[in-house]
């Protein structure tokens, strides 16, 4: 395709179509996909779940399973076609020149073998190396993927490594055979944001250091911007746009790509000044595709022509391909949000702060007893999941809690709602003490505190219809007389933009976003004062995410509901919340108004988090700060400041080189306007920090 390049591509996929055979006939999962990857190039494939991006990868390595097969097209690897070859022939052509890295490193590593053994095995079997030589090579490779203490890691078992280290091992293993093509399928999705950032740095450096072409599959637009130069956007089994990252992000042609760019909150956006524009409708099922353009049913520009004729992938500018009849026109006309959306822009004015907060938690502690290692006796140990946390939630506002997995944010919320027994602290909600489990609470109190869960697949009971499940809290809390329950359920469904026809559906008939909306409807059915949202959108696709966030905003706007919003995506939390608390290892390290958190002065941990977030905007320049080491165990947290073991700032910004951080618990420093930082470094020094994010113009 890139004819100006003389060399032949490593991988050249032409008009690839893959179908899965099912009981209900053939399902065309991938249709007419063409792209090429040059030598030492990182090429990304982005798309939402179920768009066929992994299927393409499986097609390339011939892992389609028993019911999948390539129905049309060619896959040229170093000039030779892989389609229609026998296993034996494939082995000859491909040899060990294609390697694959999957999402979950724990699945790729054998838990009963030491790292060294399983890595060396690759070389001993494929290359016939001697054991010692193989081990040497492995250590060397581990060092090349920036694994600290490589020799030691060789002797460990997979479970003794952290997620980030495991993924490094898997990448090192994939590189051992010096592959010409490395396929990475969401390699950082299961990792925490700071770990992800480090692994992404590694991947970005791979093409430089190894002469390897990378096919990088991801759903995350920000990640893609960081690792690759060119990107292909897939939608419902077809490739809709393909260009350099710059072009796709800044001047997208295809309406779907444009829609994707509009529905992710940019870091720095907030709910008072902007609105997320979800893509309406839902992805068509591969069994039931529209006859014309696949995006037509959801497209704002669709015309008669789009309904009838399927567009071809066209080269609109050199190297910029899009599958749209009206691409030129759309690019010229620009985009305006539909009328109905603009009129609904919630005019969120600053609310006057009432004197008494709705929820006030002081010195909250939640410890879990840890089983003692000794058989008999031994001092009792505790996992200090939440240790001395104080927070206030103002009525009608949203408090965001961000932090990496295992920092105790979920435990904190569970303690507030009464699912965990607090070990200590004072909990006051609407002036009532709530430091007791939910079973001891009054029904009227229970009604005021409800929760929205993270995983859409487990939030609804698969055995009952949507109507029954939303009706249950209505009946239980006697919100409306029992003969009016169905009417009220329908009202709630309408409010969730689902409509009455969902009343009798079972959860398995709903998509992820729809399930999440039903979960929200169930939570707000009792018209609670406070809704605790535990990562409500992190398991959803971006286009759906926007719709759910908007919905939550609307609820807050209409009902004045207070929300506590847990998240790990800093852009989303920034967009949604008025107040934000940053949590690390059971403690808050920084609390303040949302905009204050995202600009200096920062707590060093907040600074590191911000610099790790993948940003879907190639113009944004991010400071490069990476945390070393792993999160210490909550069983035995570090003395003094808990962050001191990983803090990149203390030695340079404190006069004593940071000795005080190891010995003393830091003070809460007040930066004004409710912005407080839990750090030894003087505020003046913190204020001098440069902002993490700057936009290049």
């Amino acid at each position, binding site marked *: 395709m890139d004819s100006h390049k003389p060399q032949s591509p490593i991988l050249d996929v032409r008009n690839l179509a893959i179908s899965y055979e099912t009981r*209900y006939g053939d399902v065309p999962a991938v249709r007419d996909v063409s792209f090429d990857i040059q030598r030492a190039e990182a090429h990304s494939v982005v798309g939402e779940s179920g768009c066929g991006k992994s299927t393409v990868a499986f097609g390339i390595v011939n892992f389609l399973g028993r019911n999948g097969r390539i129905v049309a097209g060619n896959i040229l690897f170093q000039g030779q076609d892989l389609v229609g070859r026998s296993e034996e022939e494939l082995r000859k052509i491909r040899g060990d020149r294609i390697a694959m890295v999957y999402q979950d490193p724990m699945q790729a590593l054998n838990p009963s073998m030491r790292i060294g053994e399983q890595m060396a095995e690759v070389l001993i079997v494929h290359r016939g190396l001697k054991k010692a030589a193989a081990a040497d090579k492995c250590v060397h490779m581990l060092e090349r993927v920036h694994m600290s203490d490589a020799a030691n890691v060789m002797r460990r078992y997979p479970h003794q490594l952290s997620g980030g280290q495991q993924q490094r091992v898997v990448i090192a293993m994939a590189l051992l055979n010096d592959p010409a093509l490395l396929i990475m399928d969401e390699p950082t999705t299961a990792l925490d944001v700071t770990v992800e950032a480090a692994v992404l740095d590694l991947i970005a450096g791979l093409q430089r250091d190894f002469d390897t072409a990378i096919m990088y599959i991801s759903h995350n637009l920000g990640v893609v911007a960081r690792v690759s130069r060119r990107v292909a956007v897939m939608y419902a089994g077809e490739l809709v746009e393909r260009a350099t990252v710059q072009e796709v992000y800044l001047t997208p042609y295809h309406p779907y790509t444009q829609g994707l760019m509009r529905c992710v909150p940019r870091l720095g956006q907030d709910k008072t000044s902007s609105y997320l524009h979800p893509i309406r409708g839902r992805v068509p099922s591969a069994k039931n595709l529209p006859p014309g353009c696949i995006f037509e049913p959801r497209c704002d520009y669709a015309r008669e022509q789009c309904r009838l004729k399927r567009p071809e992938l066209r080269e609109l500018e050199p190297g910029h391909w899009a599958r749209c009849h009206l691409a030129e026109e759309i690019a010229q006309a620009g985009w305006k949000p539909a009328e109905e959306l603009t009129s609904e822009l919630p005019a969120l004015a600053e609310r006057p702060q009432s004197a008494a907060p709705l929820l006030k938690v002081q010195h909250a502690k939640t410890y879990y007893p840890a089983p003692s290692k000794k058989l008999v006796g031994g001092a009792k140990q505790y996992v200090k999941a939440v240790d001395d946390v104080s927070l206030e939630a103002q009525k009608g506002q949203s408090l965001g809690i961000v932090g990496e997995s295992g920092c105790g944010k979920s435990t904190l919320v569970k303690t507030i709602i009464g699912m965990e027994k607090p070990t200590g602290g004072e909990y006051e909600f609407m002036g009532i003490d709530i430091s007791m489990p939910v079973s001891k609470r009054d029904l009227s109190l229970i009604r005021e*505190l*409800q929760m929205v869960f993270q995983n859409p697949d487990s*939030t609804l*009971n698969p055995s009952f219809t949507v109507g029954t499940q939303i009706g249950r809290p209505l009946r239980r809390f006697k919100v409306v007389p029992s003969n009016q329950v169905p009417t009220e359920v329908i009202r709630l469904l309408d409010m969730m933009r689902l409509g009455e026809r969902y009343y*009798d559906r079972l959860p398995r008939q709903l998509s992820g976003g729809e399930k999440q909306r039903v979960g929200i409807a*169930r*939570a707000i059915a009792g018209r609670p004062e406070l809704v605790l949202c535990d990562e409500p959108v992190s398991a959803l696709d971006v286009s759906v995410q926007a719709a759910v966030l908007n919905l939550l905003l609307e609820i807050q706007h209409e009902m004045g509901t207070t929300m506590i919003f847990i998240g790990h995506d800093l852009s989303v939390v920034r967009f949604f919340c008025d107040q934000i608390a940053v949590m690390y290892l059971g403690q808050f390290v920084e609390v303040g108004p949302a905009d204050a958190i995202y600009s200096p002065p920062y707590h060093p941990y907040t600074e590191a988090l911000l610099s790790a977030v993948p940003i879907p905007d190639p113009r944004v320049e991010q400071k490069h700060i990476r945390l070393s080491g792993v999160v210490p165990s909550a069983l035995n947290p570090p003395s003094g400041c808990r962050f001191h073991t990983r803090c990149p700032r203390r030695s340079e910004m404190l006069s004593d080189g940071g000795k005080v951080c190891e010995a003393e618990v830091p003070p809460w420093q007040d930066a004004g306007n409710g912005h407080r930082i839990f750090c030894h470094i003087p505020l003046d020094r913190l204020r001098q920090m440069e902002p993490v994010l700057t936009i290049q113009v």
Partner: protein
Amino acid sequence: MKKGKGETGKVEMAATETDTEPVAAAGAQGKAVRETGQSGRGWRRRWEGISAITHSRVGMIGLTMVVFWIVIAIFAPVIAPHNPLAQDSSNINQGPSRLYALGTDHMGRDNLSRLMYGSRTILVLAPISVLASVALGTFLGLLGGYFGGVLDEVVMRILDAVMAFPTILLYLIIISAIGPSAVNVVIAITFVGAPGVARLVRSLTLDVRTRDYVKAAETRGESALHTMFVEILPNARGPLIIDAMLRVGYAIFAIGTLGFLGLGLPPPTPDWGSMISQSRKFIWTNPLGVLWPALAIASLVVGLNLFADGLREESTRYQ
């Protein structure tokens, strides 16, 4: 979904399979059902699950065998050629003849009629005893799995103690203690079967308990009974139903064994187990007398097993 589906069922399935915006009819029809109560809808859904079996050849063979015996049991009084208790002293231990299609036993009773009537007792007792053991086991398993801790320990250790005995020994002990009768056979099978069910339900509960919808019920302050029986149990029903099918097979074996040992139903009730035991003495002169009831037990148990296999195959494919 090839056969046996109502029009409405099809609409619902279409929505499931294609995952697209449903036909407007589905909404309208849903409304009608809601006004008339939810039961119709529930049954349709259940039928949908059961009809999945039609895709499994093994399951269908099993189902045919089971249905064959059920039909015979229901219509035994109509189709049996003779009175199962009538003795024909001139035809003792005879082979198949025009008068007695499967021959006669040592007292000159018609084997065919006795087999037909025998299926009635076994097909009533086995399901009842399995239902009872599933009910008891489910309750104990839910209790242990949901509450955990000391309660779980106590319940499970007691059940382990019961399971430590060889089953046949347990049957013998129980029946000889309370005496042979239809009711006591049911009691014995319930007692012996419950621990296995309890273990299964407990492990399913431990899994389902971690789901968010159970947490949601807890944040609503639902009672433990509600959470156990409304939130958890319905989601454990798949494996539980398959297990129960297999258990009906075991129960038939057990009833046969007890009959054979003379601990089942008191004579002269036609009972497959006791038929084998009585004909055993004449096995050299009239081997068919043993063969027929043995075949009957085997075909029913195999049929149930195949049916359970088919169900498992189809239900796991859906998940």
